[in-house]
């Protein structure tokens, strides 16, 4: 059952991602992207990361993508410009290199029997207390500093976005 779900959602994720690249219309690209994120969320569920799956839909598909679509609408960019322009050689080189990289990464990633250390959380713990309880507990103890730094990061992002986009005389 899991395998079928995996293959199905994985396949859809790949197809939708490809559609993001190949769609001529920018809005379509963005919508394919939303679809792709949904399939990713399902994959996270399969991996029992429910919390992340929810976040994926709320933050990514919900907030970030809406943000992007809003920008596209505002700038009124439908069609990609310069379509007629010849494809530069460097792009061809790049795509070939990426295909090589694809093989390399497959060799890297697809192997068994890696012996890594385990912990600090087991599935049993998750089962016992619930994922959100465990995560939040750790977020505010072990990962407290990272959490605080993320707040600075987001502040910087907001300040930066405001400062760049505000209309100047």
């Amino acid at each position, binding site marked *: 059952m899991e395998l079928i779900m995996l293959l199905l959602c994985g396949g859809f994720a790949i197809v939708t991602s490809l559609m993001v690249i190949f769609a001529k219309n920018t809005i379509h690209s963005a919508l394919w992207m939303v679809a792709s994120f949904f399939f990713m969320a399902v994959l996270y569920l399969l991996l029992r990361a429910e919390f992340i799956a929810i976040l994926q839909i709320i933050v990514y598909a919900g907030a970030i993508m809406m943000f992007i679509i809003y920008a596209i609408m505002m700038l009124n960019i439908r069609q990609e410009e310069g379509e007629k322009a010849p494809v530069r050689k460097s792009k061809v080189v790049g795509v070939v290199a990426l295909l090589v990289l694809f093989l390399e990464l497959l*060799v890297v990633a697809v192997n068994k029997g890696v012996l890594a250390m385990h912990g600090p959380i087991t599935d049993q713990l998750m089962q016992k207390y619930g994922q959100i309880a465990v995560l939040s507990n750790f977020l505010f103890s072990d990962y407290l500093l990272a959490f605080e730094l993320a707040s600075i990061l987001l502040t910087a992002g907001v300040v930066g976005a405001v*400062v760049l986009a505000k209309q100047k005389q």
Partner: protein
Amino acid sequence: MEMLEFVVPALNVKAILPQLILSLTALTVLLVDVFADREAGKTSAANGLIAVVGVVAALFSALLTIGMRESAYSGMVLADGFSSFISVIICVVALLTVLSSINYQRSCPALDSGEYYCLLLFAAVGMMFMGAAGNLLLLFLALETMSISIYVLAGFRSTDAKSIESALKYFLLGAFASGFLLFGFALLYGATGTMDVVKIGAFLTAHPEVIHSRLLLGGVALMTVGFGFKMAMFPFHMWTPDVYEGAPTVVTGFMATGVKAAAFAAFMRVFFIALGHLQVDWTAIMWLAAFLTMTIGNVVALSQTNIKRMLAYSSIAHAGYLLVGFVAGTKMGQAAILFYLLSYAFTNLGAFGVIALLAKKDGGEYTELKDFAGLGFKYPGMGLAMAVFMFSMAGIPPASGFMGKFYLFSSAIKSGFVWLAIFGVINSVISLYYYLRVTVVMYFQEAEEEVVMPKASPAIVVGLVLAALGVLQMGILPSYLWDLAQFSIKTMIM
């Protein structure tokens, strides 16, 4: 369902004191600016001065923490000699940048805002955390804090096409490279099961069979890409000249020194502490990278006529020199990198500070080499300062660049990389040509058009004097800082 017991984390303020001070200063600047009441057409130095106070306080706190050796926040932060030294470098960078910004904002009013100084300080916080991070997760967050702030800073002259282009290129490529870096982190995490730098090192010691697993090696390669991008290592250096040229001059100086220092700090921490066992494996490729980076940087710098672009290529070359210390890989080589980073901070910020002096009334910049013709005698102080910084970059004694290169190359020789050291020396001979050309133009050429330097504010005078003193101090009496750098490396948490 029973509840998980919440363990209140120990808040070790001392371990992150400089970062804390800078963050609070950043927020203060942002808030104070909201209530600032500006006369029309005038700029205010208030923001800059608050930033200066904060940075100086952070500098002192960083100096105070020298000698600490503890890991805090569940291993997220490693407060040791190394992170203290990096914090000192970043404070110096931030201080000199703020001082020149106070002058620069007169001609470029866009920079006269709380947001500018706020983002500058946030970037500095990110850089410091990069030096102190003991966990890849925090390291990534710190790196992104720095990067996002700097994407914005690069595009701060938001009406200038070059500035926008600079921000665009840095942003897209930075995000792209972050993807590679993250992929590398993921593979490393997959291979070892932890993101804690020290624990990874311990794990690899306990399980040597993992060292050459494909997962780990792939991770190492991809992380090299990510860090190499920030360090401007060949062939990930391509963004450097374009981004440096377009960004406001003071920001360029900040990027060239601060980002490089932070990237090298993180790179060293991850590679020497977590992946120290792979040193024999990476030596050959990093040797090649060091050689190509410095050679390409220097050679292309030769044919530049725009001084900011020239310094951008020269910063690539300096990344190459720094990699020589990395290839050497010994404690001495690592200490030499720290020493060189500090020396480079003084030198490069000094040089960019001088360039930033020549802002046009309409907010433009004089950046062509020929704009500098004849300025040496017209403005003797400026000419002298520029000569000092150029000599330091070229590595002519008694400026600090000479000592820095001396330590780097002798560490390489001691580790048996004589040829790399020889190529380094050849490269510094090549570089002499274009550095010298700046002074030649300044002193020995007649100006084609009248270039008038607006009156310099006291802030930048203080900044340039500090930078020049730093250059000379490190060049003439390097012992103290060299000992400190060695101490910093020795007290690194393994």
